[in-house]
């Protein structure tokens, strides 16, 4: 049944939307698509080049004696991998195309068989940052629970930019609905209930990095996400 409020809302939405559109966007879209294709070609080329560089010591026998300190970032960590499900949104990104940090995150998540990667990039500086956003590397992924988000979805940010990074539970931004906060260990961890459908879990590292996972409409709990954001092996991929 349609209520008078719904009828009125429909009418008002139409009035609100009734604005002149911009000049034709077709040329800009075509140019943008060409840029994306070129960028993908360059990325693919870089991938091949990177593989060649990494494989060179194996082929030549050199590099085996090179000392890699314990805990140092993996030499391949800086690789910028990107993935999108645009070719087949119903199935998501094929699992063999998941970027490394996504695989590491999913390995720490509660076991489920319906994690479906929608898109991801990282670990690298995003290409389209506005000038007022610091050009810092990030790993970003949208993971659906079920190909059609039957059980919600997660967004993952290895580096979530906050205007004011809290340094203790006492300095959390207000007003927020804090589910829990623990600043007795490193990294400090806190979870926020945004709107009853969305929880965010944040780990704040001593250098100010904030590893952030947002769970929207999912059965995954904030507590289950804590071990993920506290995993320094994942967080240190940014270093």
């Amino acid at each position, binding site marked *: 049944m349609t209520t008078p409020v719904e009828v009125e809302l429909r009418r008002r939405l139409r009035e609100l939307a009734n604005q002149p559109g911009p000049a034709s966007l077709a040329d800009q879209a075509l140019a943008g698509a060409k840029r994306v294709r070129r960028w993908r070609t360059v990325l693919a080329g870089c991938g091949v080049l990177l593989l060649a560089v990494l494989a060179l010591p194996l082929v030549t026998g050199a590099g085996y004696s090179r000392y890699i300190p314990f805990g140092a970032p993996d030499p391949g960590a800086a690789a910028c991998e990107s993935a999108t499900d645009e070719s087949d949104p119903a199935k998501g990104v094929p699992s063999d195309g998941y970027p490394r940090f996504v695989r590491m995150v999913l390995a720490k998540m509660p076991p489920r068989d319906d994690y479906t990667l929608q898109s991801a990039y990282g670990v690298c500086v995003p290409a389209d940052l506005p000038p007022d956003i610091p050009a810092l590397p990030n790993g970003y992924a949208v993971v659906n629970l079920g190909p059609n988000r039957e059980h919600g979805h997660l967004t993952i940010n290895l580096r979530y930019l906050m205007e*004011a990074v809290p340094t203790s539970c006492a300095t959390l931004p207000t007003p927020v609905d804090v589910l829990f906060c623990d600043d007795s260990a490193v990294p400090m961890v806190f979870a926020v209930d945004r709107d009853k459908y969305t929880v965010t879990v944040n780990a704040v590292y001593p250098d100010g990095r904030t590893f952030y996972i947002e769970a929207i409409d999912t059965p995954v709990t904030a507590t289950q996400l804590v071990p993920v954001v506290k995993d320094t092996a994942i967080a240190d991929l940014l270093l």
Partner: protein
Amino acid sequence: MDSLAEQEFRQYVAARQGGLFRIAMLLTGHREDAKDLLQTALIKLALHWTRLASSGSADAYVRKILYNQQVSRWRSRRHRMEYATAHPPDIRITGDPATDTTLRLTLDGVLRLLTKRQRAVVVLRYYEDLPESEVAEILGCSVGTVRSQAHRSLARLRALCPELTSIKETA
């Protein structure tokens, strides 16, 4: 994309751009953000134009991109920063409820107080007039979620924008 496909793409954009822009306006509430959102969706459409045009699913694809891009928090620069404020946004609901302009501004302000998903549900249900099952399909969630989100959104709109209920009596 060959020149014929490009020509077809331009014709499609010319025919659909106005309608898609209006949806983007309602989703973002900002003209520049709306243009940016639509531009991103059209670039993605252009990347797959040949396949989508031949299957006749271009409309469904671009609309799905529009809604899901907007719901995804990382898309806009506004959502790359967490702005912590001590007080709720300063959006006042004032003026004569019988005045159309006032109500338009009021509704625009109140829409900003909804979550992105709630806003998307409102636009799909009450602007595009889509049934709950189609809304669920576009947003990739269950019909139950759509129903509850629509219910909560309406309740919130009613509470924050009482003019919406009184306008019929006063007009």
